[in-house]
């Protein structure tokens, strides 16, 4: 008969072992691409070496010569900033409205929840026609417009706004603040983590967006980073380590932001989750 204490230790050890195996599988692709970007040696050599031999940063510089990297970066940044700004403002306005009672509120919430069930990808064909009709093909606005407001983020704001004490808002109103001022001076400062969630989520979504730019962008100068990446792949296949250096450069901002704001990110996803 094993003592209870020892059995507990054993259980924990096996749990750790399982999680280490999982972590290994999850991290392996990162390691492999990082290694290739630093050496590129196993592009032509078999067997590949497991540890990097003679690592260098040559490929990271090479990327700048293969493609107009700064231009792609600029496009991606502009589109992301537009999307973030719009999300932070529009979602806050909508969420503030939803904390009120008004006729049709239930209907609006139902519409929002139903819209969550329409994946953006199902809309691509008409969305392309609409954007073309608006004359926004090949433009920053056209790239960012569909991501200007996100339902999940509205609900994140709404939950946060509802936690603001009613008396505070009433006091502000008596002091003569307009509704816009109440949002700007009271709601938003008291909801910093909801703002952070909005920023993080809208950044990740617009930064990673591929299908939409693929459809609305024809002009080579308007390509965003994911498009540049896929073009790079179709031009050069995997003949150069620069492709993998490019991958790392594109992934880095997302990973860094995620590691810094993990809490906000997860809260956003799960609160969207519990809201249907």
């Amino acid at each position, binding site marked *: 008969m094993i003592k209870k204490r020892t059995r507990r230790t054993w259980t924990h050890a096996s749990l750790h072992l399982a999680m280490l195996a999982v972590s290994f599988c*999850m991290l392996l692709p990162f390691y492999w691409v990082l290694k290739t970007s630093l050496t590129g040696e196993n592009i032509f050599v078999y067997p590949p070496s497991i540890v990097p031999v003679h690592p260098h940063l040559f490929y990271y510089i090479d990327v700048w010569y293969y493609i107009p990297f700064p231009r792609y970066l600029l496009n991606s940044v502009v589109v992301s900033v537009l999307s973030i700004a719009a999300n932070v403002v529009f979602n806050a306005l909508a969420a503030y409205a939803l904390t009120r009672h008004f006729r049709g509120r239930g209907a609006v919430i139902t519409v929002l929840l139903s819209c969550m069930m329409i994946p953006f*990808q199902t*809309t691509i064909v008409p969305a392309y026609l609409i954007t073309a009709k608006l004359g926004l093909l090949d433009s920053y606005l056209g790239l960012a417009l569909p991501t200007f407001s996100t339902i999940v983020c509205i609900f994140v704001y709404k939950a946060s706004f509802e936690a603001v004490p009613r008396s505070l808002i009433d006091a502000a109103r008596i002091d003569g603040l307009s509704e816009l001022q109440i949002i700007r001076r009271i709601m938003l400062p008291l909801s910093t983590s909801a703002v952070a969630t909005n920023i993080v989520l809208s950044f990740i979504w617009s930064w990673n967006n591929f299908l939409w730019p693929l459809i609305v962008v024809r002009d080579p100068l308007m390509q965003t980073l994911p498009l540049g990446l896929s073009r790079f792949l179709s031009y050069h296949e995997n003949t150069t380590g620069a492709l993998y250096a490019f991958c790392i450069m594109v992934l880095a901002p997302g990973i860094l932001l995620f590691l810094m704001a993990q809490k906000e990110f*997860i809260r956003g996803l799960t609160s969207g989750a519990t809201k249907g």
Partner: protein
Amino acid sequence: MATAVDFPAASEATSGAVGKRARHARPGVRRRREMLLVWVFLLPSLAVFFLYRILPLVWNAVLSAQQFSLFAPSQWIGLDHYREMVDDPVFWTSLRNTLLFMASAPVGILLALAISLIVNAGIRGRDVYRTIVFLSYPLMTVAVGIIWRWMYDEKVGLFNYVLRSLHLIDTPLPFLQSFELALPSVLIANVWQILGFYMIILLAGLQGIPQNLYEAASIDGASPRQQFFRITLPLLRPSLFLAFVIGIMTSFTSFDLVYVMTQGGPSHQSELLITYIYKAAFELSRIDYAAALTIVQFALLVTLTWAGNRLAGGDAGAVESGA
């Protein structure tokens, strides 16, 4: 909604009473202005959703019954596109693949359930494990596709190297160029990326289960296994349902992965409906046929969500009342 107090006079609100009486006392002009303001605030968001969700959905249905041309007015042709689909082998292949993609969701969810149970068991370093498992989710899918493509590479890919070193195979496997292996290879990459998201949802669900239920159960002598099947699993149903919905939605969102890894090839063997929709609309310029394909996939999504909801006990939609 208990927390949202009606647009009230200050005294009413602080005393906790909903300001019904106050509303009557107030001049109607102010009330109307407030109503107007509410709609003005809602307008930008609703406009975006109307323009890029609702209108496209309707327009898809209209387009699918039309002969669309850029240069001539569209003509009604009824269900011709759907009839064409029946005889379109690529449609059937992509439908099968989409269903397989959806079917891979429960596998991933099961894996994520095991992981979240371990992480939730209070082992040391749980936050680190959680971060590692979740790290792949926020990544740019195009880059993920390129990374996996590289690992699947026939000549110098990691998988072929490992399999050859272990003498499991003699000749390298062309994972992404093979009829049988292309789709499963993409599926694995997809599970790798989405696993962390499932885990986060299930963890949130697990943490929502009141701890005293377990205490009461162990006092009553319930074994861990009984506790799992009688408490954890039933109370986790809404989270499992949600993970399932997200899983079947990845059959749409995995466009990026398929596009980068296989382009739907070889000869459409890893084609999904969404990649076929894209090709039909933007490579073959058959916007109308693509719209019909979209309607089919959307119908599939709604049907499966409904069925999943029934399986989850029919109350998974009840979270809406909390919104």
